[in-house]
């Protein structure tokens, strides 16, 4: 029993009553109550440990997921391609605005024409070797024609409705934007990839061509040309 009394306190309890009470109060807690409480205490600790092990991986995983998602959103928003004029233009070109006044002939570029207008889809491999890449897509012409058609349509609408509608200046500016010709840098400006038929007609020139190929580092092409050369001119004395 706790005897925790403050000795400095003047307790107003008769010592005889207190002693009488202490001599009689000896009841004990029933065993089933003890078991129930102790079981509850142990169960609570077990629940804590289970909760702790769950939190051990749950919290770091949640933090990692949050950081990853945040980074993905930030990187996605900071991607300049989303807001670049090229992307904007391709979207407008790919999805022309339809108006009720549109006719079948005035619907904008056909799908094949759209494909030609996409600069990224233009096959670079079809360009002649060493030649600068000219703007063969006719993109500027298409844009100019598109702007002209747009202006004409607006004028017709103005005439019909009698209102002073103006074409969207931004769209016109985008369509009219001059596109610089892209020049491909020649892969081998100084050495031909293989010897021409004209060179092969003369033994000296062919031999010179093979030497040029070898000097420019195209050993495989030079060997191939040399094999052909030996077949055709087996008697030619090769210099050292």
């Amino acid at each position, binding site marked *: *029993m*706790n*005897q*925790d*009394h*403050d000795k400095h*306190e003047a*307790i*107003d*309890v*008769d010592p*005889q*009553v*207190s002693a*009488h*009470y*202490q001599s*009689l*109060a*000896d*009841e*004990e*807690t*029933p065993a089933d*109550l*003890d078991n*129930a*409480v*102790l079981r*509850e*205490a*142990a169960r*609570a*600790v077990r629940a*804590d*440990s289970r909760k702790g092990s769950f939190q051990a991986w749950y919290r770091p995983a949640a933090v990692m997921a949050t950081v990853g998602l945040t980074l993905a959103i930030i990187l996605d928003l900071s991607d300049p391609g989303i807001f670049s004029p090229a992307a904007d233009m391709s979207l407008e070109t790919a999805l022309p605005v339809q108006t009720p006044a549109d006719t079948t002939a005035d619907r904008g570029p056909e799908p094949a024409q759209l494909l030609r207008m996409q600069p990224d889809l233009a096959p670079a491999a079809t360009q002649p070797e060493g030649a600068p890449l000219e703007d063969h897509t006719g993109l500027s012409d298409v844009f100019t024609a598109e702007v002209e058609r747009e202006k004409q349509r607006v004028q017709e609408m103005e005439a019909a409705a009698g209102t002073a509608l103006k074409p969207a200046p931004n769209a016109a500016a985008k369509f009219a934007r001059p596109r610089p010709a892209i020049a491909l840098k020649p892969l081998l400006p100084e050495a031909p990839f293989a010897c021409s038929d004209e060179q092969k007609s003369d033994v000296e020139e062919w031999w010179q061509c093979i030497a040029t190929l070898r000097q420019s580092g195209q050993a495989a092409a030079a060997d191939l040309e040399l094999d052909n050369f030996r077949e055709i001119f087996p008697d030619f004395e090769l210099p050292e």
Partner: protein
Amino acid sequence: MSVIPEDSALMLRYKDGDVTAFETLYRRHKDSLYRYLLRLSQNRDTAEDVFQDVWGKIIKARHRYRPTAKFTTFLYRVAHNCFIDYVRRNNRHRVASAMDPDCRPDPGDEPDLEAEKSFARQRLDAALGTIPDEQRDAFLLHEEAGLSINTIAQVTGVNRETVRSRLRYATKKLKTALAEPAVHT
């Protein structure tokens, strides 16, 4: 010489997952708490219900426990509040005899002495039953928990003069009741 760990240290160890620390703490306080509730409620079933409720609250409160006050103060404040809640919840707890024989220690080899003791205990319980709840509460907190006047004031939420007054009246009434000639039935 082994050092007996303080109640607060045991509670902190239990907070960290040491169940044996809780067992030590429980065995140290269980009987006095049980007797406090038994005599306060005057009903064994009520005492057991509230007893289990009190320890359940102590177990749940282990993470919030801070050793700013004595554990005994903390324990009996919880017990006091639990009993008041119980009484309010049940409008008025059923008062019955707390003298159930199954919660008494084994009488041993002296049945006559034990019969006398049992009779004296009945008189004590009857005398305790005649005094108001607040006075009985103060008396039991002093006798069972060994709390000082200041601590009883903290636990019951009244000032120390009120506690002194309650203790004085309770003792006076008990002394009068126990001094009356015993009548064996």
